[in-house]
């Protein structure tokens, strides 16, 4: 009997104590937010990333796997600014998890902590896939990552108060290291300033603003509209007047338009990882920017 009560007490204690130590489930819509949550949360978070760097974030479906993961999530980390408008609201509606609905502490939108660029001057679908709030591809500027990190660390502490000190400590360490890394990237990329580039999709607005590159043209005639031979010919004419060094595309995009223009306008096609996992080198947030800068420098040679 004593044996049993001892066993029972241990079991009861385990039940009471375990939840405090269990990692919280983070549902990140994009690989960069998954990576950031891991930097800030360490062992305290179990991160599920809904998409990969090789997928077009605009065109994800509310897949069964996403609904299942959102059901058990304690925190949803999304980009916002309408990037996930086609699928995240539906996933959250079907998951039956009120903790992660917009407006709850369990729902975090990175774009609300960053000043967005490229707000459309005309809100009209005739202008292509425009986002009313501004360009949502904020992760291409590491200073945005720093801003989001500050807010995300506070949010992790709010959602999981038992481990608040851990999140604060990890944030402090990350912030220091990240700022040093930004300084390093800015030094390395200084020669790139003013380099004229062409982009396939307007996906690099923040990167281009950060590094001071000069966008000569976009291959897509309108954002999200696949280039045609006619539209590429127009870009070619622009490039004859104003030549560029390289044409940038994200890892998830098809290479045909970039190749087409690269062959005719003699500029270098550069594939950027765009987010964590976009190529073999971009394994985490640090190597994402190491690799991005290395590829840009190679393209500018």
């Amino acid at each position: 009997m004593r044996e049993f009560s001892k066993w029972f007490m241990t079991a009861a204690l385990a039940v009471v104590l375990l939840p405090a130590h269990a990692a919280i489930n983070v549902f990140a819509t994009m690989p960069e937010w998954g990576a950031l949550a891991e930097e800030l949360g360490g062992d305290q978070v179990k991160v599920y990333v809904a998409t990969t760097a090789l997928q077009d974030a605009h065109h994800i479906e509310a897949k069964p796997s996403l609904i299942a993961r959102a059901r058990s999530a304690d925190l949803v980390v999304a980009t916002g600014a309408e990037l996930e408008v086609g699928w995240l609201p539906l996933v959250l509606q079907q998951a039956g998890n009120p903790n992660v609905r917009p407006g709850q502490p369990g729902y975090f939108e990175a774009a609300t902590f960053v000043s967005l660029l490229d707000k459309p001057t005309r809100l009209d679908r005739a202008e292509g896939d425009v986002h009313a709030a501004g360009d949502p591809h904020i992760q291409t500027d590491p200073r945005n990552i720093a801003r989001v990190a500050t807010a995300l660390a506070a949010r992790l502490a709010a959602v999981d108060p038992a481990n608040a000190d851990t999140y604060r400590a990890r944030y402090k360490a990350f912030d220091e290291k990240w700022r040093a890394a930004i300084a390093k990237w800015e030094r390395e990329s200084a020669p790139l300033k003013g380099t004229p580039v062409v982009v396939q999709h307007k996906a690099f607005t923040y990167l281009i603003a950060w590094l001071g590159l000069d966008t000569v043209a976009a291959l897509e005639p309108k954002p999200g509209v696949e280039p045609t031979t006619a539209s590429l010919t127009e870009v070619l004419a622009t490039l004859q007047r104003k030549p560029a060094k390289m044409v940038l595309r994200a890892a998830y995009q098809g290479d045909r338009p970039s190749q087409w223009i690269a062959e005719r306008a003699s500029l270098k096609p550069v594939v950027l990882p765009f987010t964590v996992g976009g190529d073999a080198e971009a394994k985490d947030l640090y190597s994402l920017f190491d690799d991005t800068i290395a590829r840009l420098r190679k393209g500018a040679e």
Partner: protein
Amino acid sequence: MFSPKLVRALGTCALCVPLAAAAATDADLTEIRDQIRQMKESYEARIRALEDRLKAAEAAAAPSAGAVPAAEPPAPSSASSYAASTLSAFNPGIAVVLQGNYQYLKQDPALYGFNNVQIGEDVTPGRRGLGLAESEITLFANVDHLFAGSLTVSLAPDNSVEVEEAYGLVTALPYGLVPKFGRFFSGVGYMNEQHQHAWDFQDAPLPYQAFFGGQFTQDGAQLKWVAPTDLLLEFGAEIGNGDAFPGSPRNSNSAGAWSAFMHAGGDVGASSSWRAGVSYLETRAVDRVGKLPDTDGNIAQTSFGGTTHTTIVDFIWKYAPDGNATRTNFKLQGEYFWQRASGDLTYDSDGSLGRTNTDTYSANQSGWYLQGVWQFMPMWRVGLRYDRLNQGSPDYGDNAPFLATSAFSPQRTTVMLDWTPSEFSRIRLQYAQNKERPDFTDNQFFLQYILTLGAHGAHKF
């Protein structure tokens, strides 16, 4: 932001500093410290953001040696012109679907009917020639902190208006529970919940046409439960009035339709996603008007009263290299229906053939379709569909001399090609060979457009 505890504690501090420590417990103090720290962090973040913005503004203001093309007008400093007025700020999302087509039908659509399979009187391939198809208006929004609502009104080309869906959702329940109530497309099967403009072919597969009159709508309530597992396991049950085919309005206080369904789904690697399901639906009907070809080749009007049990097995598999469906993708989808009906059947119920007769009726029938759609390059897709009805051996009782015809299974083969220049528009060309009855085959050509405007629609799996 300021909890009552914090305010109380601060008040106490201001009044009598030496007593503050005694007034607040250790736990309170820790909480207060936490809150102050959080406030500090939040303000630091904001200040940093402001500093960064200032820096960016300074950089932008500095002359940048003509890097900006002269033709580019300066961007406006704010988007305040889009700010909604107070009156419209709470307007729901509005989405509109516009559709129209050209249809070449070799056979007269008035003669549409399947060998030995009763179908609803309004099931036809549509009109011949140029025509407007169904237009749709959807309004949706959160109602409050507990509910969300959605209304879809369908405007038919004959100027009639129909409430296609009008439902409320409870959004605040925990544990994966999602209740829905009102009028909604039933969750049975796979395609049933999808609106017609989202289908990969212009028309519904034969089992949907024959056993559901196109699509089964519930007027009632649904409860879904998502299990807390990494693999999606979803269970649902519905109760409704059963007014829609295969049920009918019954002038009764009791429910006329019950259903239960289960879905499982997940991913296989990054490239494949799947979902499979089993569903069951029971409906009651009284004087349900339908049509059935008779031995003389007439499309006779029939009237059915009784119970119908429908079981569906469905699956869908979607594949895209690396899960990036924008360039190329493939989907394979199929559903199998079993339908058992028993009750009374009145042959020639409108008396137009002068042979009106009522007797018992029972049938065990099935039907299925299998379709594949391949996006072979951005914007372009091709599709192939095969569907079939198995008449079983219906027992017509005394009506047998009028109705029993040959053992022939209606079947159809369809091919389609569509062009989707953006997420919001699609133009489709479709050809079908529909073998409805022995010696009665229809060749159908469709050219169709679908335009979507307004609020961004959901990418349903």
